[in-house]
């Protein structure tokens, strides 16, 4: 019982009790407030369409997801027949940036008349500590949807001026812009080879 009169022991005991109660409280609330992966995906779709939409997940083999400057994270077929690809691109300020790219299509794969008509929308997904990501303008995202004819003809996007590709960069946010451009290019490549190419 002498131990319980020791000041250092009592101090540690109190600290331990506080930490245990805090841990238990957090565990309970974590279970109550946990956001599932499905919930996060539904939020992204709501951001893209402005409302909840029915989607069907398309599984791709692992080797079909990795590209030179990015990676495809997930592919969905929406109820309106468009394809949604979540991809991340390298070259950001401190890592990668993920975006959702909507590929507008007519027809369907099942009917054998699937035709790509362009890029409907590019929406920001997430990033790894890109400090200036909020400074990227809507015009930059809009530029991806304004060159359908060139993209359908085989061109990609580039954040560097002077290339044959379509130049698109957000001023003062070049590193994060580069990562987004790489993510969109990765999505286009994957869509062309895996969805239109028939691998999926």
């Amino acid at each position, binding site marked *: 019982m002498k131990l319980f009169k020791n000041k250092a022991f009592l101090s540690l005991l109190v600290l331990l009790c*506080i930490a245990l109660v805090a841990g238990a409280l*957090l565990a309970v609330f974590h279970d109550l407030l946990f*956001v599932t992966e499905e919930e996060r995906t539904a939020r992204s779709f709501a951001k893209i369409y402005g409302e909840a939409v029915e989607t069907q997940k398309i599984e791709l083999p692992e080797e079909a997801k990795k590209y030179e400057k990015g990676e495809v994270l997930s592919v969905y077929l929406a109820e309106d027949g468009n394809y949604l690809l979540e991809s991340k691109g390298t070259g950001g300020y401190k890592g990668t940036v993920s975006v959702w790219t909507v590929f507008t299509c007519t027809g369907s794969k099942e009917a054998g008349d699937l035709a790509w008509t362009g890029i409907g929308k590019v929406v920001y997904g997430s990033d790894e500590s890109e400090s200036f990501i909020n400074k990227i303008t809507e015009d930059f995202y809009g530029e991806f949807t304004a060159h359908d004819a060139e993209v359908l003809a085989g061109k990609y996007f580039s954040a560097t001026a002077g290339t044959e590709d379509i130049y698109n960069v957000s001023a003062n946010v070049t590193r994060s812009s580069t990562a987004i451009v790489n993510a969109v290019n990765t999505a286009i490549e994957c869509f062309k080879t895996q969805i239109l190419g028939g691998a999926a």
Partner: protein
Amino acid sequence: MNKYATIAVDGLVRENATFRLVLGTCATLGLTTSALSGLGMGLSVTVVLLLSNTIISLLRRLIPSAVRIPSYIVVIATMVTLLRMVLDKFLPDLYEVMGVFLPLIVVNCIILGRAESFASKHTALESAADGLFTGLGYTFGITFIGIVRELLGGGTFFGLRVTDFTIGFFTNAAGAFFVYGILIALFSMAIEGFGRSRRRKRANLRIPDGEEPLPSPEKEATL
């Protein structure tokens, strides 16, 4: 003034965390490109302050002095983590905007400062009032800076377009320092001016009949 009114005036004006104590500056400069993100951060800090102040005050007789700081940090970190979970679940857009600044509330010196200087020495009710009003004072400050920067830098007010005339400088870090400095000066001038006129009024009330009142501030300046 009763003690709750004094706590309210201290938290909102006399010891305003943003303009008088210059605390929580990191988030103040980083999150004021828009009024809405400033308001979100301010209210988040208010909630954490209110809860942590109350809990620390309730535990003040149980926590030995030697482990008081680690204990406060555990309580504050728990409250911030709970807030993060709630925002991620119910306000995901605000959660995304606040990004890295949300977990950084744990090391916000306003919260630890009020825990150490107020909550550990006062009753739970007084500490809750202190947390609430200090938080609201901070919210007022950070939102006001956000309004000024958003209006000058982006031409909008809480996202609504007001003017097409914009000065990009105010959206940068340098612009944040500039606006912050100017507003601290204006706030301090207003508080000191108000204090001077109150002191003068009180002094004039005590002047016996037939004696000259104190000179006006303008006259005093020329003297």
